[in-house]
């Protein structure tokens, strides 16, 4: 463990006692600070727990990429005359993935922050920006400390191991060498550290998405504490279950296939398709958000007062930046600058456009007017729905998915929202949940080569593809969706309960009326 007592005690102990009229106000802040420290303490404990386990595990178990290398050298041993040369990353692939990583960072800050921020009342603008910025930063650090290892190193079907704890084994300072990580193509590698960075942005934005569901009323300390718990016990395992596999190079002969597949994550083993995070990112976050909306309760005045978005201009700016950043998210998920990236790029492009049209048409037909907020929401709905599908479906399939998602999410934020009865402030479930589920299921439909899709790998040794019957694939997709909903739902429920017991979920009614900008952060977004 790190020497936490001194470092944590110093700020409160060292602070001068407030005097006079300011006292009650300062005292209240004192409580908030204490709660914040509890949140940070928890984070450190989690990291410490990781550290202890790391010490135990240090000697055992090779890393995923190392396993790939081992398998490659195993093949080389069979043919001793030709020693296998270490694969060298292509500079184009590395450049592409660096750009994609930066694009996905832009999706959270500022894109998502602005998209969400514009939708709240001006008195809560900074609280949303702040929650997104700090959650993003905290998750990136947790990801580097232990998240990546637990998600993307070899372990069991649910969690990874501790091989990559504290980013161990990715960069050798003595030799200056970087460990290579697998992509989806045999013999194509990128530095595993780059994969870690790319995936860090995914973990971070997923947590940031949840913020929208309980915006305008949750304590800042509670937000951070919840995110640390939920990230550890929902994001990390779902990412492992859906995305972890030994990589294509390991599959050198038919006899190895079953053994290697058994090392992959649970949902991956089922054959579920999730190219860039329909389950891992969107459904996962949406369920956490919906549970949060129920647990935290409705905003004061919900249904009686007008909660008018304070700046749809900023929401539009955010939505547009999200669209651009999403090319990094989706096309980057190909992990190399190749044909699949192009397919994912185009599908992300066209599905989103189709969803904008669908939402606008739907609004014009049902409500009489097509709104800007509707069109911007349609863009996000399309982006969400195409996320699991982008590299897994054909060109027309993508447009259909976008269209369906546009209409479905319009229902998600109106009809379904009324049925659910939760104050999901910024419709995280209506857009990301519904869009994610629609996308995940339709991925199973339009993956089929008969419907213009690329099919799935059916022979791991040669990389040959074929089609799984549509209903069979949809059933697999449905199982993946259901597992994600239940897993995230249960983890969220427990996490909110724990946070409620430790620091309390909600600000006081007085603070909520005043606005979180002033009451939680002591500043104001707009002066005039």
């Amino acid at each position, binding site marked *: 463990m790190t020497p936490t007592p001194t470092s944590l005690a110093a700020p409160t102990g060292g602070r001068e006692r407030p005097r006079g009229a300011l006292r009650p106000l300062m005292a209240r802040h004192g409580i908030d600070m204490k709660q914040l420290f509890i949140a940070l303490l928890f984070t450190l404990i989690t990291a410490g727990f990781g550290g202890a386990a790391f010490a135990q595990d240090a000697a055992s178990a090779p890393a995923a990429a190392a396993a790939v290398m081992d398998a490659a050298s195993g093949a080389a041993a069979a043919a001793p005359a030709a020693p296998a040369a270490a694969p060298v990353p292509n500079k184009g692939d590395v450049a592409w993935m660096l750009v994609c990583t930066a694009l996905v960072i832009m999706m959270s800050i500022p894109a998502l922050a602005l998209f969400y921020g514009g939708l709240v009342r001006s008195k809560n603008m900074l609280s949303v920006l702040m929650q997104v910025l700090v959650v993003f930063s905290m998750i990136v650090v947790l990801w580097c400390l232990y998240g990546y290892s637990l998600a993307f190193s070899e372990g069991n079907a649910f969690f990874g191991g501790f091989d990559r704890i504290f980013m161990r084994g990715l960069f050798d300072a003595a030799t200056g060498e970087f460990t290579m990580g697998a992509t989806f193509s045999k013999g194509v590698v990128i530095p595993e550290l780059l994969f870690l960075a790319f995936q860090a942005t995914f973990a971070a934005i997923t947590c940031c998405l949840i913020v929208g569901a309980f915006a305008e009323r949750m304590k800042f300390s509670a937000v951070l504490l919840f995110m640390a718990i939920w990230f550890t016990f929902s994001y990390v395992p779902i990412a492992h279950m859906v995305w972890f596999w030994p990589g294509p190079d390991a599959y050198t002969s038919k006899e190895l296939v079953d053994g290697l597949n058994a090392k992959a994550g649970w949902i991956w083993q089922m054959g579920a398709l999730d190219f860039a995070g329909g389950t891992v990112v969107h459904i996962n976050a949406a369920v956490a958000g919906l549970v949060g909306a129920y647990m935290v309760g409705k905003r004061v005045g919900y249904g009686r007062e007008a909660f*008018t978005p304070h700046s749809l201009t900023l929401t539009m700016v955010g939505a547009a930046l999200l669209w651009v950043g999403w090319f990094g998210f989706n096309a980057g998920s190909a992990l190399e600058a190749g044909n699949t990236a192009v397919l994912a790029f185009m599908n992300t492009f066209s599905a989103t456009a189709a969803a904008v049209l669908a939402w606008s048409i739907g609004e014009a037909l049902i409500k009489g007017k097509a709104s800007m907020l509707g069109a911007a*929401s349609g863009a996000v709905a399309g982006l969400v729905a195409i996320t699991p599908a982008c590299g897994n479906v054909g060109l027309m399939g993508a447009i259909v998915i976008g269209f369906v998602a546009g209409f479905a999410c319009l229902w998600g*934020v109106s009809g379904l929202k009324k049925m659910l009865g939760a104050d999901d402030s910024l419709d995280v479930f209506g857009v990301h949940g519904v869009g994610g589920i629609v996308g995940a299921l339709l991925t199973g439909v339009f993956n089929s080569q008969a419907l213009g899709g690329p099919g799935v790998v059916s022979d791991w040794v040669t990389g040959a593809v074929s089609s799984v019957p549509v209903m069979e694939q949809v059933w697999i997709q449905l199982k993946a969706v259901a597992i994600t909903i239940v897993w995230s739902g249960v983890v969220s429920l427990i996490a909110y309960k724990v946070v409620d017991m430790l620091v309390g979920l909600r600000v006081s009614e007085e603070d909520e009326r005043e606005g979180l900008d002033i009451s939680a952060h002591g500043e104001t977004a707009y002066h005039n």
Partner: protein
Amino acid sequence: MKMVTAIVKPFKLDEVREALSVIGVQGVTVTEVKGFGRQKGHTELYRGAEYVVDFLPKVKIEAAVDDAIVDQVIEAIEASARTGKIGDGKIFVSTLEQVVRIRTGETGKDAL
């Protein structure tokens, strides 16, 4: 002396100001206000949430004028602010007891 207070449609402000200048009104105070009258508000729709906006933006013009021109002032505002549609606004006239020009200390009519 009279205080003439007119609530008019915002886009009519320039025409009203013009008309008042023509008849010699030396100064007015303008405030952006919200309110409701017989004109109905409108509904705004944000995703699933529908809000009725009852208070519509208007402009309040206040002019302190001499009794001699008060009828002209009312006519000028009426003529320049009218569109003939509901929501054109109202004019209120009240008696003004005292006026002081701060710079010179003049009072009453001289201060107008």
